[in-house]
């Protein structure tokens, strides 16, 4: 369980969060999304203990211990590591910092990462897998992933996601992902949180979101619903509507299409740029 209460945080004069609240239950896979710069990475860093709140607190379940970072696996969007160290030195440092007896390096060997290579010499894919291996070795209760899944190739991405599925199947792992691209992760996610101006604009399960956001193609705007955004074409317009319910089907005078998560989030974000 992650409990964020009354969180306030600023970067100098720029206020990012003011009195922000969010509660994530154990075992949930939560997606945090929003436009660039809205504070998603900042929120993740605050959860990881890398940044400290100005006001308010982020509390974790008591079983994480007095320093929850011991059981939090955090992969930053810059894949932050000591770049001048070799892979084996980096592993040794990680082990001693967390007090781990050993690190399972099966994945590292599988992706042909040499233990004598310096971290900065690794490709992004290799570095991501190294980071993943380091993080998995703590047997984390909470896994925070910032935006790195789509910078790696499809094969490594599948390996990465399979690791997460394995962990989810084995234990009550809470996952918080920050993404702007949902292509492969849509079916892992249970809850979608959209941030807008430092607040939660949307907080729904993915199934509910898919039921409530539809695209209506017609010549005129559907007036009984809230239109998030629209795309105009020569002879018709696409209206993205929310919240939709089944009772409205047939009354909207247009073609109603289901949307995938990318289209749904675009619809919400598109409204911001209008």
């Amino acid at each position, binding site marked *: 369980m992650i409990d964020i209460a009354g969180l306030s945080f600023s970067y100098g004069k720029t206020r990012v969060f003011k009195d922000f609240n969010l509660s994530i239950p154990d075992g949930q896979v939560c997606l945090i999304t929003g436009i660039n710069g809205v504070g998603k990475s900042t929120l993740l860093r605050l959860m990881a203990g890398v940044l400290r709140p100005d006001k308010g607190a982020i509390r974790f379940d008591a079983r994480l211990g007095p320093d929850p970072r011991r059981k939090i696996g955090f992969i930053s969007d810059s894949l932050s590591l000591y770049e001048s160290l070799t892979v084996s030195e980096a592993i040794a440092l990680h082990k001693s910092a967390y007090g781990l007896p050993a690190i399972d390096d099966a994945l590292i060997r599988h992706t042909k990462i040499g233990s004598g290579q310096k971290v900065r010499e690794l490709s992004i894919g290799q570095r991501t897998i190294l980071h993943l291996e380091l993080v998995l070795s703590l047997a984390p209760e909470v896994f925070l992933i910032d935006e790195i899944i789509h910078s790696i190739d499809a094969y490594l991405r599948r390996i990465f996601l399979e690791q997460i599925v394995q962990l989810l*199947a084995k234990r009550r792992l809470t996952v918080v992902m920050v993404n702007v691209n949902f292509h492969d992760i849509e079916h892992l996610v249970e809850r979608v949180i959209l941030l807008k101006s430092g607040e939660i604009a949307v907080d729904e399960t993915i199934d509910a979101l898919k039921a409530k956001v539809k695209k209506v193609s017609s010549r005129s705007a559907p007036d009984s619903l809230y239109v998030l955004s629209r795309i105009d074409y020569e002879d018709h317009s696409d209206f993205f509507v929310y919240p939709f319910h089944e009772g409205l089907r047939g009354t909207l005078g247009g073609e109603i299409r*289901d949307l995938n998560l990318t289209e749904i989030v675009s619809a919400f974000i598109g409204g911001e740029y209008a």
Partner: protein
Amino acid sequence: MNKAREDIQIRIDAKSAVPAYEQIKRALKLAILSGHIREGERLMTLREMALKLVVNPNTIIKVYEQLENEGFIYSRPGAGYYVRLDRSKFGRERHELFGEITRDYISRALDLGYSGEDMLQELARLAGMSLRGTLRKGQPDD
């Protein structure tokens, strides 16, 4: 445990608003009702299924639970999930699934603006073609 059936093809349509668990459930039901998986055969474990589809294990838990409640599968503790084919329910379930597929089709056709009459005509035409053997699944008609 005996070997699980691993060759069941399930594709989840991300664009559909039908929840992932529902799609997986239907695919498995279809496989069972069409005889593709036979009575007594073992399904993949929750974890294997979640890994194969790269979906949240909770989704598979839901699928298996519902399939068990609806009587399609039963679980042997420590030994996995097995297909049960209740001959008496077989016909009814098949009919229900048929109804679901048809309702799906009708609602999508309605959205496109086609009337019931249009649908009957088109169905008659295509059904005729399939009876003659000239229509295959997925093939565009002329």
